[in-house]
């Protein structure tokens, strides 16, 4: 695909008949555990358009991560179908970049070597020089200057998260799946990372499916927020966030429009949590 500096993706003409980037049709997931069957995700319908940023929020254990695993092809739906660009997901979905909740930075590689690993693979190999340039730019973007030669064990948790983010963004996957990527970061750094994520995903016109339990983060970043109810997860509300882009991540949360959205969605989320504790 793209081999050099092109972070920009040409805007495709919005075509009403084009298939959704991601589509879940009555997709449900059950797990067998200790002889019992656990419903992780009730049959849900959800579609994400190309270049759209969709945030999934909900209490823990509501199946948000299961949705990401289904889209990545790490899991198969027990019922229904999961489509990617109109085709059923079969096996690993190589069109997505997946930043899991778990730290999957390779401990034996330095920060810069971790960031560049995707560009070493045969499917998108670039010259050593091009890789070096892009890695340097990415390191700069996530603010890891001075830590290029450090091994993950020498980095803080927040820095490792940034390495993981840079490693996923560097190859500009068509779709980005993120599972609470900034959960472990302090408030200040979280805002910085959200800002960088907005810039990068807008520039590269990526489709993003973003799991979080931070409602403010979801509203600040997403075009649409999907609120999940507790287990068995089902979609409670889908709300379009009509805040104009580019958003000022640092101040957007003080606007009245943001406050209204936050209150509205918080009530949905709160009811869900209360419901969950009763069950």
């Amino acid at each position, binding site marked *: 695909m793209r081999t050099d500096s092109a972070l920009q993706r040409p805007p495709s003409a919005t075509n009403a008949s084009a298939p959704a980037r991601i589509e879940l049709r009555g997709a449900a997931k059950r797990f067998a555990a200790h002889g019992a069957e656990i419903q992780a995700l009730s049959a849900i319908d959800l579609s994400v358009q190309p270049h759209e940023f969709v945030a999934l929020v909900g209490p823990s254990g509501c199946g948000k991560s299961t949705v990401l695993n289904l889209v*990545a092809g*790490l899991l198969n739906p027990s019922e229904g179908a999961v489509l990617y660009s109109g085709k059923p997901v079969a096996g*690993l*979905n*190589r069109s*997505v*970049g*997946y930043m*899991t909740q*778990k730290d*999957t930075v*390779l*401990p*034996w*590689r330095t920060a810069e070597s971790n960031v560049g*690993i*995707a560009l*070493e*693979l*045969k*499917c*998108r190999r670039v010259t050593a020089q091009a890789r070096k340039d892009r890695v340097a730019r990415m390191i700069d973007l996530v603010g890891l200057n001075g830590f290029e030669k*450090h*091994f993950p*064990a*020498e980095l803080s948790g927040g820095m490792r998260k940034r390495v993981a983010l840079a490693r996923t963004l560097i*190859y500009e996957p068509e779709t980005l799946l993120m599972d609470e990527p900034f959960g472990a970061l302090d408030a200040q750094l979280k805002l910085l990372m959200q800002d960088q994520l907005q810039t990068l995903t807008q520039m590269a016109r990526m489709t993003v499916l973003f799991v979080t339990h931070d409602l403010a983060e979801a509203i600040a970043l997403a075009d649409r927020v999907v609120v999940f109810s507790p287990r068995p997860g089902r979609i409670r509300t889908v709300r379009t966030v009509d805040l104009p882009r580019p958003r000022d991540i640092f101040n957007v949360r003080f606007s009245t429009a943001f406050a209204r959205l936050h209150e509205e969605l918080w009530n949905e989320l709160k009811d869900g949590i209360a419901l969950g504790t009763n069950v």
Partner: protein
Amino acid sequence: MTRKTWRPVGGRGLLAWQAVVLLLLFAAWELAARYWDPTWTSSPLRVVERLIDLLKGDLYRHLAVTFGEIAAGVLIGGFLGSITGLWLGASRFLGVLLRPMVVTLYNVPLVTLAPLFIVWFGFGMESKVVLVAISAFFVVFFNAFSGAQKVDQDLLQNLHLMGANRLETFVRVVVPASMAWIVAGLKIALPYALVAATTGEMLAARDGLGSLLAKAAARFDMTGVYSVLLILMLVGMSIANAAVRVENYLLRWRRANG
């Protein structure tokens, strides 16, 4: 009974005491040899004299032969052991299919194979290299196998999602993730390699420390036997020392832990 607490000892004081103990032991040996017949016990001074003779003579050739056999054998056996171990460990089916066969082969005592290899490969270094390689193969195989089985599946999946093929995930995740296990295996393999090489040399060889030892023993030359044993001890120590250095280099990314 009276002392309840042990103070930690170390540093120069400890080293000095160890030197004293060693000197006393050597002195006792020397005195015993002067008091009784030194034919069977030899004596430290005789050993020192012999060591000097050996150093002036062809010790280097024997050292080179033994070291060469160990180096070549460990490299060949370690490489094959790593590759097969990682391969079988990373593939569930192959592991279940072939590991029991490797375990069965491992049950043959290695020394008993020495005559066979001497018949096949002759009196030269080759038969000893094969012996060393086989002993290294098994130790490294089992370690690499465990290492490959314990590779974090999330790391593999992540690289697969990036578009890596099986060879790429093998080279970039399975091998480095198992490196600690392989290096640990090599460290265990080295002393065994010395055993394998010298055993082979004692049975049939013209050169090498083992043949030197066997020839001395055949002549009831106890001074010669002790001298070679002392050299073998030093060889073993230097090999272990080198192994630690190699380990520290290969696994330098782990040093930050702690």
